[in-house]
């Protein structure tokens, strides 16, 4: 068994997380993520008796919100913390698609 992930695997994860990492970090994660996987491997070996999930320790089912309009922000408040804006809009650099 390999003792590390491939560089490609680490880059795939970094891309999923949208975190830029350098060569040193790639190397670190190659080892670290594999080590972690080995540590948690034991979890898959556990034979639990039933198949119920615990998504969260909820104490109730969802209640529903009445379909009534509540307070809203004005565009100025929407833009208050935005680093880039234009008119009433929040601005972002254009999405590069491979069209």
């Amino acid at each position, binding site marked *: 068994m390999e003792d590390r992930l491939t560089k490609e695997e680490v880059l*795939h*994860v*970094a891309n*999923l*997380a*949208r*975190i*830029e*990492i350098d060569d040193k970090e790639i190397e670190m*994660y190659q080892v*670290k*993520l594999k080590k*972690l996987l080995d*540590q*948690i491997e*034991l*979890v*898959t070996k*556990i034979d*639990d*008796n*039933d*198949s*119920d*999930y*615990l*998504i*969260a*320790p*909820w*104490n*109730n089912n*969802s*209640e529903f*919100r009445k379909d009534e309009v509540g307070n809203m*922000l004005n565009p100025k*408040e929407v833009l*208050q*913390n*935005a*680093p*880039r804006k234009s008119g009433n809009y*929040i601005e*972002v*650099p*254009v*999405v*590069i698609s491979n069209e």
Partner: protein
Amino acid sequence: MNKYLDLSLQEINNLLINKKITPKDLVIESFERIEANKDLNGFITLNKEAALKRAEDLKDQEVTSLTFGIPIAIKDNIITKNLRTTAGSKMLDNFIPIYDADVIERINEAGMIIIGKANMDEFAMGSSTQTSYYGPTKNPWDKTLVPGGSSGGSAAVVSSRITPIALGSDTGGSIRQPSSFCGIVGLKPTYGRVSRYGLIAFASSLDQIGPMTRNVYENALVLNTICGKSKNDLTSVETNEDFTRLIGKDIKNMKIAIPKFYVNDTIDIEIRQELDNIITLLKENNCVVDYVDIKYIDKAVPLYQIIAMGEASSNLARFDGIRYGYSYENPKDINDLYLKTRKNGFGNEVKRRIMIGSYLLSGKNATTYYNKALAIRDDMRNSFLDIFKNYDLIIGPTATTKAYPLGQDLDDAVKAFMDDILTIPVNMAGLPGMNLPIGFSKDHLPIGMQIIGAPFAEAKIYQLASYIEKELNLDLNPNLGGDDNE
């Protein structure tokens, strides 16, 4: 310097009612103590001007409760309108929220005065408050030591009597462990007891906000204020009870369980000895104390890594430099904006956990690990619930060690989670759990025990805790505040 903030809330309340002091005196004293202990670094952002103004506004109002006019510190992952909220991260260094968390509305209604935003591990990811972008907080008992974490700022501030009350949050032990390191009472309530609306999410199925105080009674008072159902949080639950109601009541015949895993020899010997003293005390009071097994409790850390990191990787995806917070300045395109914003905005520990979480949810891992973890989590919770069919409470140590030196273990991932090995199971099962100071090590550092209850059994936790507190009658004031100035 005055010493009103060393008094109990009842004593302060008397002074306020009799107009001997005003809320402003308390606020001024808080800021004097902060000033006198600057090196403690308990706060990220101070709220001096607004706090003084609020104290002024409260001056002529009727003193309605024991918490009226009392200074409070708020962990900096709890959203405060118009008061900078950073979660200890560069990512939110410039973030001024436009709404209040539910708990903030409640403590405001109760007349408390926010002194500042307490330091914490970045996005609550850490157990020593050393991952904060704003530098580590120091332990008031020994400033070369960590205060624990992630609510280390809140714990240090209450321990050093800067504010009598702080709010913390607890995902895997973040209230209880620093409370044990700093010698205060900290409670993680039942999942759903306190609204999470306005708590910057780390792991949504584990997070809870809770009170951190100098003693048991005051802790129950704060829980009275912040608990209850909110229309903003579907997982919150309506409760209508007074958490102080069992305080002082006899504990005779109480049935106490100790998980065998909680007395294993990885735990500091001094801590085990202190716990033994408590067990003796309880037995002397005709309590039943039994050792029990809880399924998968020893597997809680790997389960936690899967679940908490998975949820965190998703919860922290929203920090992308578009709508708020730090944003990389000259991105080539949108992807560059994402990559660089998150590279520069997050610290190493946060990035590491996001990477782990993303990895464990990616591709086939989600079915191999995540689903499996949820299934085992269900069994673990059921095993806890089975214990509570026969026992009133579970006890054990809070942490495996007492406070350790600053700078240690920062990069040891496994060791970092070992700090939380005794607290994580409680979050996994959604139970209430408290740290109660029960003694000191030879080098006079606080040692704490953990009291764990069935869902919504906080009142019973307070009952046992108040009994032990009274019996031990410890001096938990590190006596820092202002002494140097006199």
